[in-house]
């Protein structure tokens, strides 16, 4: 039931690509974007998102829904651009014909033929003068609701043992496979947050209690755990958790 993005704990990945200088010291600074197209892919994704036709959970789910062969082969911002393209089509902000027309022109190197000095901005378009204000506000996911958490700090829980999205087959969820069916302990309660399993599918925000849950390394990885004292903490919504009795 999992998708490729759900890779925590997977075997087979090599060394971390840690950048080092010629003295073999770890480099702590790198430019935000290595190529201009990456900056553009990132910025048009934010700007298109500001049109309000989708939310953060929907855009995450679109990236996760890329076909496995593309998810593997695409670099990070290629995934962003591919997911954005699919969103733009699905939300009817652009048509497939328009896309094909622009792609054909791009391949021929004559995108300039579309240049238009008289573009009328859409009412929803994010303006440069509003950028700092919008970034500063962000997109808080906490909601004031009267839902009370059923778990207390220190309670033992066991996570769902299968993909917990009950509304959509293969739908978005934030319970990673590596932590399914595992016993953990409630570390903190973080108020009620928009529930991605519904929000990613346009089924409403349904804010629900969000907990930070502590799992012992040995509970997640058994005898192959690296060190018995180590812990892994995950932020999990209430529907992912069931009470656990020893």
């Amino acid at each position, binding site marked *: 039931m999992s998708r490729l*993005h759900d890779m*925590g*704990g997977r*075997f*087979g990945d090599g060394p*971390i690509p*840690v*950048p080092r200088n010629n003295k073999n010291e*770890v480099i*702590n600074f*790198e430019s*935000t*974007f290595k190529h201009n*197209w990456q900056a553009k*892919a*990132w910025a*048009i994704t934010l*700007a*298109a998102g500001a049109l309000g036709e989708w939310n953060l959970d929907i855009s995450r789910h679109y990236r996760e829904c890329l076909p496995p062969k593309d998810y593997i082969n695409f670099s*990070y911002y290629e995934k962003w*651009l*591919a997911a*954005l*393209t*699919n969103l*733009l089509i*699905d939300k009817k*902000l*652009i048509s497939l014909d328009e*896309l094909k027309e*622009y*792609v054909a022109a*791009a*391949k021929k190197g004559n*995108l300039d033929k*579309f240049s238009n000095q008289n*573009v009328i*901005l*859409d009412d929803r*378009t*994010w303006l440069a003068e509003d*950028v700092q204000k*919008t*970034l500063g*506000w*962000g997109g808080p996911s906490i909601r004031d609701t009267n839902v009370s958490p059923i778990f207390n700090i220190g309670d033992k829980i066991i996570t769902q043992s299968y993909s917990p999205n009950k509304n959509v*087959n293969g739908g978005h969820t*934030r319970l*990673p496979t590596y932590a399914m069916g595992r016993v953990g302990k409630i570390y903190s309660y*973080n108020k009620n*947050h*928009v529930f991605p399993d519904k929000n990613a599918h346009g089924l409403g925000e349904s804010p629900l209690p969000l907990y*930070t849950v502590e799992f012992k390394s040995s509970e997640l*990885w058994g005898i192959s755990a*690296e*060190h018995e004292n*180590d*812990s*892994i*903490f995950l932020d999990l919504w209430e529907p992912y958790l069931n009470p656990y009795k020893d």
Partner: protein
Amino acid sequence: MSENKNIIHNHTHSDDHAHSQLPSDPELRVKAVETLLLNKGLIDSRTLDELIDTYENRIGPQNGAKVVAKAWVDEEYKKRLLNDATSAIRELSYQGRQGENMVVVENTPNVHNVVVCTLCSCYPWPVLGLPPTWYKSDEYRSRTVREPRKVLSEFGLSLDPKVQVKVWDSTAELRYLVLPMRPDGTENMDETELAELVTRNSMIGTGLPKEIK
């Protein structure tokens, strides 16, 4: 269960992905989509420039470094930071997108914290900027929850077996910042000098602050 009747799959693109129309050169791909959106008036090029300039030049780990340095010199601030990180960080005017709900976790002689996002690339933008390439890599995302000590050793960090490692997988909208330990021999340094010692990786947990030579 009646819930099963509600199972839907609300994507129209699953069989015929629009993105497969895009050219193989990523530069051309972006240019085609960008030009189309500009011509439809759905994005404004000045907005793109402002966004890119903000995260290339104004928001980055230098922000987080100031938070850490302040916590090192001001015990009351440190308490506020550990108790309600979002508010304490806002005191320094760092707030907003991808930092709406901040949590600061403190390294001690007995505990070392490290942050990852196994499902995507969640990262505290207002204090660290956009994530470095390695943070978004499959290698970091897959291995850090299973073998954090081995991962840290690849960053040149070897931990005493007696030190407990706590890995924070950012699976929701909480964003984590590690408060590293203040290096020895820095008693006479002020906040500005101390901030210079705070490396980006030390605030993710894959490094330590610079040592005093």
